[in-house]
Structure formats: C-alpha cells, structure tokens
C-alpha cells in the first residue's frame, strides 16, 4: 500500500466506526466516495492548516451531504479536523449528521438537502470569477441526487457562465435508498445529459487513483466549460457485505458487522 492508499483505508475504517458508534448514518455512499475525497484532499486541492478557516483557497462542496462520515474522516486524516470522530451524530457535537459549515472549519458548505450543494458550488465559482482568483471549486453529487431538478438548473447556470473553475463529480454507484437508480427514477444517461447542458464530461473508474488524478488534470486544463467527472463506483466499497447493496445506504453496522468490516479493512494494511 502506498501512502494515499493507506490514508484511504484509514478513512474507510473511520467511516464504519463512526456510523457504528452513532448507530446511524450512511456508510454505503461514504465508502464509494473514499478514493475521490482522498485524491481531492491529499493531492488535488490547495488546502492546509494555514488556510482551512478561509474561503481564499480551493473549496469542496459535499452536495451529497449524507456522505458526511467520509468528509469528516478525510478532514481528520488530512489533519484539518481535530474533533473526536466518535462524537459524530451525538448531542453537542460539531460533527452533525449532515455537514454544518458553522461548526466545522473545513466544511465549505452546509449540505444535506439534495440538489442544493451544486448550486452553492456554482455560486462559489461565480464569486471566484468576480474576484479574478485562480481557486478551484469541487462538488460531489450522488447519482440519485441527479433526480433533483435543481441539479439541472445549476448545470445550466454553470455552463452559461462558462465556469471552468468548477469541477463536479458524480459518485455513480447505481443505488439509492429505495433500490437501483434505474428502477426508482432513472437519471441516466447522466454523462450525456451534462454534455448536452454544455459541460466537459469525463467518465472514469472512481476507485482508480490514476484515473481520478488524470480526470482532475483534464478538468484543470479545460477552458470555457465546467467539468463533470462521472465516477463509476461501488456502493459500500471495501466492506464485502456492504458492496452493491442498497440496504447499506443509511444503516449502521452492529458490533459483529463492525468487527467483520474492520477485519477486512485491516487486512489491507
């Protein structure tokens, strides 16, 4: 394991521990996004302890706010969050069920209500244009989230204002709470839809570090258009019994299941 893989594995361990400890939360969509957030926070984004408090840097919006365990665990692994992760979802914790930017310095937008984060990311990208700075804005959406009409209002707006400083990623794990996305309400083809809305679209394997890195590099090089990275992922990735199972969207593992999950993840170390 190289160091980034090690960080990602630590993030996965913390995700299952946090959710198990809180007895609630969203492990499936947190585990599917782990490589994406790891590359963002350890390599792609210009963010560190000196600027975490400021908006004068690259920023990330977790539009699929229910993947908060992944965001908190990533911020902690990167050394930007010092709260006890095991307070997640507990009374008086800064680590609210869905991200609250007022209580965590590294959270760039309060999210949780699907479809809204991407609009805020568009606003941030517009502001960076007004300010003539080079900071980049990243946003992670769920595939099910693309069923929200507001996502497409935001998509139209980002292309209209040629926001090439905006890079959105869709965590395309194919599952939402009620089942497979194409059975619940098919948002596909998401890539072609974003392309038709005027975005630069890149399709990758969302668990392949090199493909993630290359996609971010292409996004940075693209001028005059926002970029959408459609990242094909596996919901629950890394924990065998959670993989590709919609039942693990928003359910916490019990003690036994946690032990099994940690055993599998520790075997990677």
């Amino acid at each position, binding site marked *: 394991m190289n160091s980034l893989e090690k960080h990602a594995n630590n993030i996965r361990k913390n995700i299952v521990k946090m959710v198990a400890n809180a007895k609630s939360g969203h492990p499936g969509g947190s585990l599917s996004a782990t490589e994406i957030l790891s590359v963002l926070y350890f390599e792609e984004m210009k963010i560190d302890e000196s600027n975490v408090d400021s908006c004068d840097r690259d920023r990330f919006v977790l539009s699929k706010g229910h993947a908060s365990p992944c965001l908190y665990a990533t911020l902690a692994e990167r050394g930007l969050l010092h709260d006890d992760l095991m307070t997640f979802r507990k009374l008086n914790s800064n680590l609210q069920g869905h991200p609250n930017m007022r209580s965590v310095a590294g959270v760039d937008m309060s999210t949780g209500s699907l479809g*809204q984060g991407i609009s805020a990311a568009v606003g941030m990208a517009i502001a960076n244009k007004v300010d003539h700075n080079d900071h980049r804005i990243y946003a992670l959406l769920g595939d099910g989230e693309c069923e929200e009409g507001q996502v497409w209002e935001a998509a139209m707006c980002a292309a209209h204002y040629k926001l090439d400083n905006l890079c959105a990623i869709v965590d395309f794990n194919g599952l939402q709470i009620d089942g497979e996305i194409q059975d619940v309400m098919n948002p596909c083809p998401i890539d072609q839809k974003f392309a038709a809305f005027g975005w630069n679209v890149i399709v990758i394997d969302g668990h392949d570090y090199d493909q993630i890195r290359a996609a971010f590099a292409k996004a940075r090089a693209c001028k005059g258009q926002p970029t959408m990275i459609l990242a094909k992922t596996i919901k629950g990735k890394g924990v065998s019994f959670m993989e590709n199972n919609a039942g693990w969207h928003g359910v916490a593992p019990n003690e036994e299941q946690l032990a099994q999950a940690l055993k599998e993840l520790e075997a990677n170390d």
Partner: protein
Amino acid sequence: MAKATREAYGEELQKLVQENDKIVVLDADLSGSTKTAMAKKVAPERFFNIGIAEGNMIGVAAGIASSGHPVFASSFAMFATGRCWEQIRNSIVYPGMNVKICGSHGGISVGEDGVSHQATEDMAIMRSIPEMRVFCPCDEWETKAIIRHVANDDKPCYVRLGRSAVENFFDENTKFEIGKVQVLNRGQKVAIFATGLMVQECMKAVSTLKAQGMEPTVVDVSCIKPLDEEGVVEILKQHDFVITAEEHNIIGGLGSAICEVACKLHPIKIRRIGIQDEFAQSGSYKELLKAYKLSDEAIVEAVKEYYQSL
C-alpha cells in the same frame, strides 16, 4: 410623491453597489420588475441573471456569500420565498449566509396577475425560520433606510416590497431606528399596528375617523421579525383595543406576531385585518383592497365597530 417600495429598492441598491464593490446582485428573469436592473446598469460585472430558476438562484447566492460577498437576490415575493423556502432555510439561514432576499410584488396589490403571483404567506413562512429577519417597509424612505441597513450587516434577511406606488410618511431626513416600531399618529383607545402598504390605508382611515371624533393610534411595523416587543407592549398598555393590518394572510404574519406578544406579555382583544385565510383573485389593486376588506374603509369600519360596542 408616491413611489413603489420596489422602485425605492432599485434606487438604493444602485447607490449601494457603487459604494461597495463587494455587493453582488442576482435576479431570476424579473430584473425590470424587481428593479435590480438599476444595479445592473451601474455594475454589470456584479449582476448575474440566473434565469427562471429561483431555487438555483438561492443556492448560487449562498455560494457567492460564502466567498465574502454580500448578495441581494430578487424575484417576485411569491417565487423568491414560496418556491425556495427550503433552499432559503437550508442553504441561506442555517449556514448564516450574508444574503438579502428582496421580494417585490408582495401581497394582493400585485393585482391583475391573480393568485399565482399574489404572495400572501411570504412573511409567515420566512418568519418561521430560526434567525431569519423579516422586513416590510411602508414607503420610499423607510425602504431605502432598511436596504442600507441590511447592506451593512452580514446576516440573512427577507425584505418584502410592493408593486404599487405608496405615499411617503417619512422624508429624506428621517432618522430610522431599524427594528423599532414607529408611531405615525398618536391617538387614543384604539391602536392599529400596520405594515407595508396597509400603513397608507390606515393613515387615510385616520383622516376619516378624526372628522368623526375618533382618532386611533397608528403604528408602523416595518420589522416583523425580530419584533420590537418592548415597543409593542408599550402601545398595548396605552390602548383598550388593538387592530393589526397587513396585506397578508392573517395566519402567520404581523397579526400573529402581535398576538404572540400580547399573549405573552399583555393580553388584550385584537382584531386582525388581512386576507382572511382565502385565495384572492385578479383585479385592479384598488378593487382588490376593497373586495378583501383591506382598504381604508375597512379600517374605518373596524374602529367604528369598537366604539359602537362600548
């Protein structure tokens, strides 16, 4: 000179964007009507038309505000608050964004466009969001003072503006204490708390009533939330009967807010003039005010009823 509060908003915002180069203005394809076009004219690089997509406009406003820019976001009151309530709650107020939502064409005085465009619940739904501030100015000068005031703080708010011209009760030199209720006419026995366009109707009613030997107190309430409880209670204590007057459903707006204070601090009989929990219809602004008992005649009648009951 009569002027619509939306017009006053446009004029003040035009000045503010020239004074403060951080302010960003958003609209949703109604900039001619909401008067944000006046700001666009002088600062086009900080004006963004988001098109007919109000929910996205609110989210975009949040993102811009999170980057250190005060944002003024406008549409008709109906769409700026009604369509976007949840976006306002979750993306603006909960994160404490510096966004001023300025909704024009509030109330039924929109007129001919009819129910789909008549915001009569906007103050109720905005007021129910924790930390949200709700303003409803009554004339040109109060509008300008409120817009300037909110431009200089960093908290979210909703400002309700009107389509139709209203008389001035203040002037350029009025020193406003934003957030406090203002007594416009000092009378006795009956106090009327009014907001927005209804201030004008109440002041017209005062002239009629005075000629008949009755003179109610008229209090302008331009800040519905947080409500000046101290100022309200002082008025309640000095009168025997209270009327509230708003161009809004009687549920959830000014009438409710005054009743809540009275319940808590000084119980007194209160008659709420407003839309009586029904949908209005198309018609001219003056016809509608009469038809839904919001005109000066309705206020005269309510005050007289009190005197007759003695």
